[in-house]
């Protein structure tokens, strides 16, 4: 690419910012970025942690070992991904993590269009010592790890059997990454996701009632699209989940955004 992929922008946010914020709104546990030694990261959302790889040049297996070890005792499993997935959808993350309902599974691996996706997969955090051991033996290939543990593979059919994923990401664009300038240009050319906005209470007066579909990659963009200022009197919830006025909160296809008065109650 000629420049750090984490800092590439897509509709108003860096890919790293979008990916970490998307994971934060999807999972209940911590979100962690593994940085290469000395790597200069773009701004991250509040609450996202950073750990640095102790060694340079050992590739994704090094990052996997560092990240899983940092989650020891805080999570049983982690969704591990690269930063260059502009179309990552929460439904894919949830589908992958559901694979750990089987207590014997160590890795949940999407296999899209016949290709394994180890950097958009789920890993047990207890694998950290094994990955470290393999690295110590000089084996830097993810494939070696999979020989030593129980991997569940999810092919296209298995992934799309999930109704949410099938509805919101039928072409599995979640797994599209941007390795070349042309791929990045193609990603930039795609429109922002289509989301539904609803306004409530005083925000719905003067003919503003009812759902409205807009294109918006972030909460701020959705607010702007319907003429709402995200000030202290307004708060939003995406799909009935957390209340927020974080303009950078990433939105994805199928989201429903509710804007309401922050002084609700009484």
């Amino acid at each position: 690419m000629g420049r750090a992929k984490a800092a590439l922008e897509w509709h108003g946010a860096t890919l790293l910012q979008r990916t970490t914020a998307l994971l934060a709104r999807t999972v209940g546990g911590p979100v962690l970025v593994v940085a290469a030694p000395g790597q200069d990261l773009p701004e991250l959302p509040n609450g996202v942690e950073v750990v640095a790889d102790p060694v340079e040049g050992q590739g994704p297996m090094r990052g996997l070992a560092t990240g899983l070890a940092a989650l020891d005792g805080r999570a049983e499993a982690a969704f591990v991904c690269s930063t260059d997935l502009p179309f990552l959808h929460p439904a894919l993350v949830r589908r992958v993590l559901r694979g750990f309902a089987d207590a014997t599974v160590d890795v949940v691996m999407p296999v899209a269009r016949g290709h394994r996706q180890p950097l958009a997969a789920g890993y047990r955090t207890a694998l950290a010592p094994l990955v470290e051991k393999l690295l110590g033996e000089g084996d830097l290939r993810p494939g070696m790890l999979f020989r030593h543990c129980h991997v569940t593979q999810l092919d296209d059919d298995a992934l799309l059997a999930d109704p949410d994923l099938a509805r919101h990401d039928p072409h599995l664009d979640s797994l599209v990454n941007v390795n070349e300038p042309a791929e990045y240009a193609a990603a930039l050319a795609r429109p922002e996701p289509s989301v539904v906005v609803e306004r409530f209470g005083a925000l719905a007066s003067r003919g503003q009632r009812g759902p409205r579909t807009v294109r918006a990659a972030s909460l701020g963009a959705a607010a702007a699209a319907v003429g709402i200022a995200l000030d202290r009197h307004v708060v939003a919830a995406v799909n009935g989940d957390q209340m927020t006025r974080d303009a950078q909160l990433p939105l994805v296809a199928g989201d429903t955004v509710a804007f309401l008065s922050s002084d609700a109650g009484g």
Partner: protein
Amino acid sequence: MVDVEGRGATSAPLALDDAVLRAYLGGVGLGTWLLHRLAPTGVDPLAPAAPLAFVFSPLVGTPLTTSAKFAVVAKSPLTGLLTDALASSRFAIAGKLTGNDAIVVRGRAAQLSVLLVDGEGARLEAAPELAGLPAAEAEAAVRERFGRGWQTAAIGVAGERGVRYATVSHDGRHAGRGGLGAVLGAKNLKAVLVRSATRVRIADPPAVLAAAKDLRARSFGPATAKYRELGTLANLLAFNAVSTLPTRNFTAATFDGAHRLAAEELHELRGVARNSCASCSIGCEHIYSRKGGGKQRMEYENVFALGPLCGVSDPDDVFAASARCDELGIDTISAGGTIAWAMECAERGLIDAPWLRFGDGAALLRALDLIGAQEGLGALLAQGSRRAAEVVGQGSIAFAPQVKGLELPGYEPRTLHAMALGLAVNARGADHNRSGAYEADLSGEHDRLNGGAAHVAATVGTEDRAAVMDSMILCKFLRGVFDDPFAEWAALLSVVTGWHVDAAELHATAQRIVLAKRAFNQREGATAADDTLPSRLLGTPLELGSGRVAALTEDRLQAMIDGYYAARGWDAEGRPAQEDLAGLRLGRAELHDGARG
């Protein structure tokens, strides 16, 4: 102090030290102090010896917007603990202008009577003709009999018959929670009338006028827009969108029929008027037309409790049920909560009432009539959901929607963890006005599904702010207009009273009032075991539209309760320190019995 006995009343002034008034302000704070001093320990709330206090405030009678409020304070027949309820009306102004900071009533009249209080003292007048009348009709009748100079707080038939969640009302506004109407009814009093006899004393009139002008201007801003434009009912559709609308006795947090009951919908189709309380510039009351004629004021809490909580989505059924509650004089939240519990019991076959089903508006109205009449199933439901569950047994207490005996308001605790803590620990029981911790949950500044230390701090903060607002008194719908609440409130108090109060003193006052409430409840037998939520809410998660699961476990709630006790300086059992209790000024020295007159 007014003692009612036989066919007469004797009144005696109780002079309060200025230090007590400054320490407790008025309203809920002063009422709590009075209950400490005047309620015999362990008294039956419906016994003649149980005091009922109408308490005014430093700000009432001033031109400050929303200040025309009074508190009614007593030991609750529903919870057996302290209860206090506010109402806004000209009764507050006239009551203050009788020259008293509070009117405390004890005893029992020989027959149904009304009590009149003015500058000359108190007198009892027999009023058997008022028996069975709705409060509004009783008000009209006494106005006709005694003249328009009197303002009246009255009870409906539910108060006369001892329904444990009967209200006291004036001008259509209810002091609603905890059964204060039953306490007044137990004294054989249909109404209390007050008449102005003096003028309001203000320390710095020009400063108060300037403050009033400023506050009034701020009351027209965006912080109150919701109340002005759609009223509290604006909560309903918004709460439904964020999975915090309790539905079918807390078995769900969204309601399919919510849009039919939404303020946005009703405003367009049926909105006919907007009203204000006395001395209020916000104007939050929204009036809707009823099918077949008539008008009805609707608020979020009565629509939630009589609508989604009972599974009822027809607005005409909910309007009719709300009007019936007004006529009977009962708290809509406790009525709806108790009936919703009974609907679930009936559907599970725990009680023999096959006609009582979720979603059946006619059944809802029938249940309300039975409660008002204290007949059949109504006699059981008139006791509130906790007592009724104790009678029915069979595990039904697990889904009785109450804390300390008071039915839950329309905020789903599993998706509002700060609010869950507030509901669990509040002195009044499950309550959204003394613990407005939902503000933190809905602010976007805390993870509302992951309660922890931040939620504890937020709960303490909202409780403290409520203690001051309810004591000085200002309407909480103004809360959003203050940037630095304690400092701004201290400034208001200072110019009205001449006390030179600062923010730190007022914050200490808030903590004192919270502590005094806790101390009263502990005196009456409350323990840490009462600080909890119904086990349904702790054991059954909710799935949100986002796919996430909202769970409030017993361990998480207990951790927050432990944090709350620590933040308050209480021990692990929720007991305040003796030295803190000693600072409450509960000694006899502050109370000087005057001559009976």
